[in-house]
């Protein structure tokens, strides 16, 4: 059986994707219209990473999971009312912006510093998890940058599956072009695993898990330190939605084949 892992998941919140997202220029740089009031969800890629982390921790006894998150703490507190009930974890909070306009290098530095400060974290057993991308910032570089700042050289940036071999080595399937997987073997932690979708369903909410988590999460939220990351020194000339207009249609009873055909037609167009 493998030695316990120390799994650190980086992830924050994004506006609920069903909301109308309208870029606006604010005093602190660009943002979204009514951003503070829009309901937020855990960034879906970070969510996959967190659920995979919890699953791994369940399989390898003694493992621990931390969620390191940079976001406005009041909104994070709301988010925890859902996320904290899904799987057990400890929270590390950096109180700052989770805006998609913040600079990825600054975000990575803040996250790396916070990870270095986690008491009792065994850097030799560290698996750094997160999303391979983000629903608010799709540059897909943050995790790589955090890994580099922590000196982790083994990086896997489109993970869909992680298995632990009997000798404790990591067996990793990464997405590559054309629906193919690249299979890697990593002898031991530390490693960075940026998750694509994984294969786990979203765990059920379970308030009992939540209330256990909240015992440590609330104090963390209360003592969260403000962190400034963002747009300082960056000038945005214009900010607008991607040119492809999002036309949400709600349709019923359409066979999957028809939906697939429509997507293919759209891609080809």
């Amino acid at each position, binding site marked *: 059986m493998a030695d316990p892992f120390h799994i650190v998941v980086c992830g924050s919140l994004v506006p*609920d994707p*069903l*909301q*109308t997202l309208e870029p606006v220029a604010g005093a602190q740089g660009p943002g979204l*219209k*009514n951003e*503070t*009031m*829009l*309901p937020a969800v855990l960034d879906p890629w970070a969510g996959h990473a967190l659920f995979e982390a919890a699953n791994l921790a369940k399989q390898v006894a003694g493992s621990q999971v931390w969620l390191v998150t940079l976001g*406005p*703490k*009041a*909104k994070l507190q*709301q988010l925890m*009312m*859902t996320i*904290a*009930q899904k799987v057990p974890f400890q929270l590390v909070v950096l109180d700052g912006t989770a805006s998609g306009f913040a600079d990825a290098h600054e975000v990575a530095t803040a996250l790396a510093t916070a990870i270095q400060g986690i008491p009792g974290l065994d850097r030799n057993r560290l698996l750094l998890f997160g999303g391979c991308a983000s629903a608010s910032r799709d540059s897909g570089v943050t995790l790589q940058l955090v890994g580099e700042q922590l000196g982790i050289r083994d990086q896997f940036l489109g993970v869909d599956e992680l298995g632990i071999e009997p000798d404790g080595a990591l067996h990793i399937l990464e997405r590559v072009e054309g629906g193919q997987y690249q299979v890697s073997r990593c002898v031991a932690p530390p490693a960075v695993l940026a998750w694509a979708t994984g294969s786990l369903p979203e765990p*059920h*909410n*379970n*308030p*009992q898990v*939540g*209330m256990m988590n*909240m015992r440590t999460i*609330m104090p963390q939220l209360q003592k969260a330190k403000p962190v400034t990351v963002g747009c300082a020194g960056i000038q945005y000339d214009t900010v607008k939605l991607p040119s492809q207009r*999002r036309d*949400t249609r*709600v349709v*019923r009873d359409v066979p999957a084949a028809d939906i697939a055909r429509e997507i293919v037609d759209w891609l080809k167009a």
Partner: protein
Amino acid sequence: MTIMTKPETQASLQTLPGDDVRQIMWRYADRFDIQMVVQSSRSVARGIVAQLVAEGARNTHDWTEAKNRMFPAFDQSGITAAGLDPEYGGFLTGPRNLALSLVAFELAWVDAGAATTSLVNNLALGPIVERGTTEQKARYMSACIPPQPGETRQPWRGAFALTEPIPYVGVDTGVLGGKVRVAKWTEGAEPMLQVEKRGRFITNMAVANFVTAAVESDDPRLKGTCMVILEESDPGIFDRGAPTHKLVHQLSSTHDPIFNLTVPASRIIGGYTVQNGVIVPNYSHGDIIEAVFARTRVTVGLMTSAKLLSAVEPVVRYQRGRFRGGAGLAPGSPRYDLGLQQKEDALHRLVDIWASGEAGSSLGFETARLFDAWEPYVRRKEALFAEQGITGARAQMRALRQPRAEALEYLALLGQPPAQRNEVRFAELDANPLVHYVVQESLANVLCPACKLWNTGHGTNMLREAVSLMGGYGITEDCPGFLGQKWMDAQLEATYEGPESVQRRQLSVTMTDDLFLAQYRQWITDMRHIGALRPATGACALATAMELWLWTFMHLRDAKDADGKALYQSQRHGVTFPLADALCWLLATRCQILDVLELAAKGPASPNLAGGGLEGFVNFFTDLCHVHTARAAGEVGRICAELVYGYDRHPAWECDLRGNCTTAILADALDQAMPGYSMIAEALSREFTDQPLPPDKAGPCVCMRATEAFSRRRTKLDGCLTGARLAKDRAAQALTQVMIPEALDYPA
């Protein structure tokens, strides 16, 4: 004196209210356990429940495999355990009324039948929780707890069987047909009972493993009525019966079961004693069901309110997009952007729907919180009475006479400024748990039936309005938000757990309680104060309407009809029931205003709200209060006027005309309120004297001397409506600008 007017341009609603807003308004911002239950109920509602409705699972009366999938979802998400005590595996410590109300609210947001299914275990367990013996609580609550990791056990489900086939229990719960007899009683052993019960419309019967049933003794060796617990494996007949062909709540199972079972006497809920060779149950079925319904009815009321609020988003989306896609209609044009929202009527009606949903929710959650606050005092009272050996309803009533008198004194002191009252006496009364018990009991006895009656009854009417705003789409299965189903379902919410007549009957008694009326009087003063600070809420108009109601009630209590018969008496539903209806409007609106004040007070401490939006929410909700106050005032004025005048016989020309006509003095008095009134009166009276028979339209007029005080109040109330329509216009305007999500967050 200067009259301040508020500028007509003010911050308004930017987004639909989210959790940050609701947690403050409904007072669970500091309860993480409740917030989590809300989130997990929401994910079940908008996940599996919505899928079931969208897939057409409601289109059969049978309890299908698909419908049955809701149970594991309730178990996994903590919904089942939310109703259970921590010592038996639950996780919510302390009273749970607010938490369970929010669960019902979240589920009913999508489907109230699913909400019913989730809560029926609490109803079935209710008699055991409220009055059961320790052994009964342990056995049935532990059996209902969902399996823990590693366990393979199936959790038990329950049903509550009170209603019986005609001619027995329905609205009148005393007419029991279900019988219990002593089947076998050997010396020194537990007596065995034979229970025969037929149920009608019993929820959860398709799956119930146990049933709590109301029965009456048919044996001299057993006294009175009681509730017994029946298990599916008991010897005899446990026939689940045929599914009811109901048109509503198809995500709950309803059957007409038949039971004929032998059970040990230990199944009598709350236990029994043997006195002179007779089994005497410790609680009659009446004692038990009142205690159970008092709590569960609040959750039902909230189901209908949830549905009203759930209608706002789909209606706004439908209205805005109504004409999009039409030839030559360009994005950016008002017709494209606003669609039907260009029409004032469509907006005004939606404002009314929203305002009713707010008022109902505020009343419901206030009632749930009241039960939470009251529960510790109930336990204290029970413990004190047990210590003192005070048992039986009569003895308890006698024992509470003194605390009730003290409670009146306490309320009088409570209304005085601390500096002016006898603080020593106040502290003494405040420390007496029985004083708090009776004060809160008097409120619970009014708020609970008011919430069940008004939220469901008026709510059903308003759901019909919501359906109509969606046009033909509204009455199809495809209507987003399932509005047609929600409307129809609401009729059941108004019926089960005691239909409207039961609630009106209860209110017509409990609202006359001096303890309630003392608090009601204080509320009038409070509303005046709020009206002075925040006139835009309409609080002052509400205070005037409350005064009108109180005056009318006092008048009716002593008044007689034209034939000399007393007006306010229990059989005279024509008097008591409408007055109960009028009171509900006032109670709901008062709670609505208080919730908005709470948001205004606590909102600034919420970074998510203070960062933007709070002012808009407060202004918009304030306007909704004003709109609703006007509506409530109208209802109260109408009902009260009909009752005050309607039982005097209308004068006819045979009698002395002048005595019956409006007097000049009164005409002058009314002239001040309605300029021009005296001229009309004078013209009319001139006409009378000039002609042998007066013209059809001219009277005979009614002398209003006896009710002058009423007219004055009513006229004042009319004036109090000032500004209400401006508030409605502002709220309507806000609906055209509020940002809504791109799609509903549950399938349709």
